[in-house]
């Protein structure tokens, strides 16, 4: 017995475009603006502006806790934001406590210093104006340590220097000294956890940055003023680069994102046309 195969209609073909076709087109759409930058205009958003103002308003002499928490996947999005915020912080008279929970994050922090050149450009000195900590344990423990029991719990910085011997910690008063917390993360637990720890538990000012896919779950905290501003993925990073006058990778990436998203948009339209066409002309359900 033979089974008569159903003939594939144009709507079926439009609905089932092979993924390699879609992704090849996406790769091409990414390569074009890298090779020939288009320079599409960027309108600075309010959340990034608020984040900038929060950093700007941090009192002189206070300490800024800067949590770097992203691996290779989040690096293209968040590293430009980290560099732009670091430029801003190095210009100010504040002491920065960078901290992270892994060697990959530590490598990212070292790259931030390579780009910002704090010694050459801003006259800052490691141990006197900024420090890097490599902590262990789960996030809540790490945050609690950094915000309230740093010197009692962490014996050394990431480069084996004793914390109590570093000049920047002379006169350090734990929570009271911290003027701002900045977090850049790819983890939903960490981004929400910082609101709980920095804002609710220790009453510290907070600025965040994360992947765009996390924004819809984080916006309520910003709207409730539990967080003063935020960096929304690559677009937010590009905004911040423009605000500090240091256009870098994020500004370049915005072109790539715009063009590759147009390809995605085109396929969403094709998929919807196929759905409607099948419903009205193709006998689909």
């Amino acid at each position, binding site marked *: 017995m033979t089974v008569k195969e159903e003939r594939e209609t144009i709507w079926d073909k439009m609905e089932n475009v092979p993924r390699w076709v879609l992704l090849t087109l996406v790769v091409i759409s*990414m390569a074009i603006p890298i090779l020939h930058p288009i320079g599409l205009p960027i309108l600075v958003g309010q959340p990034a502006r608020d984040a900038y103002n929060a950093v700007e308003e941090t009192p002189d002499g206070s300490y800024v806790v800067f949590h770097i928490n992203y691996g290779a996947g989040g690096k293209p999005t968040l590293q430009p934001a980290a560099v732009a915020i670091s430029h801003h912080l190095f210009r100010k008279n504040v002491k920065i406590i960078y901290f992270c929970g892994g060697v990959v994050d530590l490598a990212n922090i070292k790259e931030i210093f390579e780009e910002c050149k704090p010694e050459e450009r801003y006259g800052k000195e490691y141990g006197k104006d900024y420090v890097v900590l490599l902590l262990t344990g789960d996030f809540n423990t790490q945050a609690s340590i950094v915000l309230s029991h740093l010197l009692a719990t962490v014996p050394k910085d990431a480069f084996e220097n004793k914390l109590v011997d570093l000049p920047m910690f002379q006169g350090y008063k734990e929570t009271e000294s911290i003027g701002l917390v900045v977090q850049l993360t790819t983890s939903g637990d960490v981004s929400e956890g910082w609101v709980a720890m920095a804002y609710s538990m220790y009453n510290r000012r907070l600025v965040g940055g994360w992947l765009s896919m996390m924004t819809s779950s984080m916006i309520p905290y910003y709207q409730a003023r539990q967080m003063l501003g935020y960096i929304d993925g690559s677009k937010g990073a590009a905004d911040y680069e423009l605000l500090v006058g240091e256009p870098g990778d994020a500004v370049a990436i915005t072109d790539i994102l715009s063009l590759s998203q147009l390809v995605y948009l085109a396929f969403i339209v094709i998929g919807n046309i196929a759905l409607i066409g099948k419903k009205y002309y193709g006998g689909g359900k």
Partner: protein
Amino acid sequence: MVSALPDVWIAAILTIIATSYVFKDNPAFKFAEHTFIGASAGYGIAYSLDRLRTYALEPMSGGKHPEYVIPIILGLLVYFRYSRRYYWIARYGIAFMTGQGIGIAMRARIRTDFIKQLQATTAGLTTVDGVIIFILVVTGLLHFVFTVKSLEKKPFPYLVKIGRYGILMALGAAFGNTVMTRLGQYQGRMLFLLKDWLGIA
């Protein structure tokens, strides 16, 4: 100019191999996948030992901080899960870790996710945005009420529908942002291939 650095070449080749999965699963992709998992596991072990040294063994040396032996014992207890006979002992270590985490987070979470969010939802009623948010929060919550019979009578089904549309809009926004994030993650590799490896960007 094409990079002459061997580590850049290794990273570029592994990037291309990983991308080959788009076309079809293949042995080269499996190799890249296993390399990544092996490297991560190796790094994890080395990192954990280093942290044990920095946070426990060094502070304890010379008889200082003998109390640090307690967390070390609690940590070692977790390994009893590999014993069929004594697996229950592992629960003490896990219970301590879980309890400590909840203890730190719980107090702040109630203020963060309930009290402040409820305040913000009602405080914005003076603006159009605030009114829309309030309506969608209330109707969105109604959508998940399944146990009240009177909600089947009009006008509640209309309110539930409004809530459903609100949820769908939120999911649509989340989907759009997810696409942007995934593209953002791959564009980093594209920049690496064209700029750092091939030197043509």
